[in-house]
């Protein structure tokens, strides 16, 4: 039930943002992310953006996994 999908912020209007995922757009509340910007990726749960997804951390995680698995070759 705690599922939250990463969506891209397209438009911000007050405490609402239009977010896009898989070619579809929705309006969600951004009360919990006051500093969110257009272009950011946010996790959306129950119609509310609950956290920003940090792309640099995603890349770091993938790099770490690659370097870990390199060790077994």
């Amino acid at each position, binding site marked *: *039930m*705690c*599922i*939250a999908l*990463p969506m*891209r912020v397209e438009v911000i209007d007050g405490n609402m943002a239009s977010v896009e995922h898989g070619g579809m757009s929705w309006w969600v*509340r951004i*009360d*919990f*992310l*006051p500093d969110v910007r257009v272009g950011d*990726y946010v*996790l959306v*749960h*129950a*119609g*509310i953006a*609950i*956290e*920003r*997804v*940090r*792309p640099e*951390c*995603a*890349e*770091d*995680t*993938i790099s*770490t*996994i*690659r370097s*870990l*698995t390199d*060790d*077994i070759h």
Partner: protein
Amino acid sequence: MTYIDAFRDKRLGKELARLIELKATRPMTLMEVCGTHTMAIARHGIKGLLPPNIKIVSGPGCPVCVTPQSLIDSFIELGKQSGMILATFGDMMRVPGSWSSLELERASGLDVRVVYSPLDSVKIARENPEKKVVFFGIGFETTAPAVALAVLEARSMGLDNFFILSAHKLIPPALEFLASDSETNIEGFLCPGHVSTIIGSLAYSRITSDYGIPCVIAGFEPLDILQGILMLVSQVEEGRAEIETQYSRAVSQTGNLEALSCLNSVFQVTDAEWRGLGVIPQSGLEFKSEFSKFDASRLVPERSFESRRNVQCACGRILKGLLSPTDCPVFGSECTPARPLGPCMVSSEGACSAEYRYGRLRGGSGDVDILW
């Protein structure tokens, strides 16, 4: 940009599984505590990829599963009052109470609306001023701030016909409860990613410091889960008990302070009953006194009945990781997703439902989305 393909890389997944096999020198039991992890592990066939000495069990991470029957009974009783609209997440519709479910009651004429967001139920209240609207507040820390926001919204609109029946639960006290149970033998917790976006990684500090059990907060893609398991196995093998965050792209140490502030302005911590586990101290949320006008529990009529439970159902021991779904005497026979006896079978995120649907790797008949 969402990195979904990168976190589903087959080759890297197999290699992470090989690393887990190389690292684990002895049998160990690890528990995941998130219905979304339960589903992802089953759907991606991750247990089939792990060495036989690594046992992954599903804890009480499905909020639908741990909602007590008595609260479902109360919610249905509220709906029977005149001029009442019930609003709920769809997950609750089929969950059996003592005698009925919301789905059956809606078929019999109760006005039950399925909503995607608690804010949708505020809209229903605004559009139906002659009715009372009660939202069933289920969910962990991921969901509770959204419910608190709905309450603040209703207050700012001046609504006096909007109510919440709070069944919210908190994850860290449940982990402490499991960690202190002498029957359980959990050597590591795979902690829930989205609960942790709200509460932050430091919320698990008592689990590592007081109970010496490693905690790893993991994301929900196959590589996230496999790396999280590898991090837990490494801690166990190296004798460490630390909080580590695999899901660093969404989880900080302190969580979402705006969401926590909203949550704490409306609710306060209280003892709560977990279906199958009993009362866990300081593990639930109740309204603060200044918001008591929104509390639907004060509308619940005096009980003229006793809630009851199915004695054959083994969900309680399954939620503690003491039994696997297939150990339950009624699993797959009297208890199926079409005719569930217990909560772990009725919710799609329940351990029994996931096992029934995706158990092909161990002889079941589900449709596993195997990536390997």
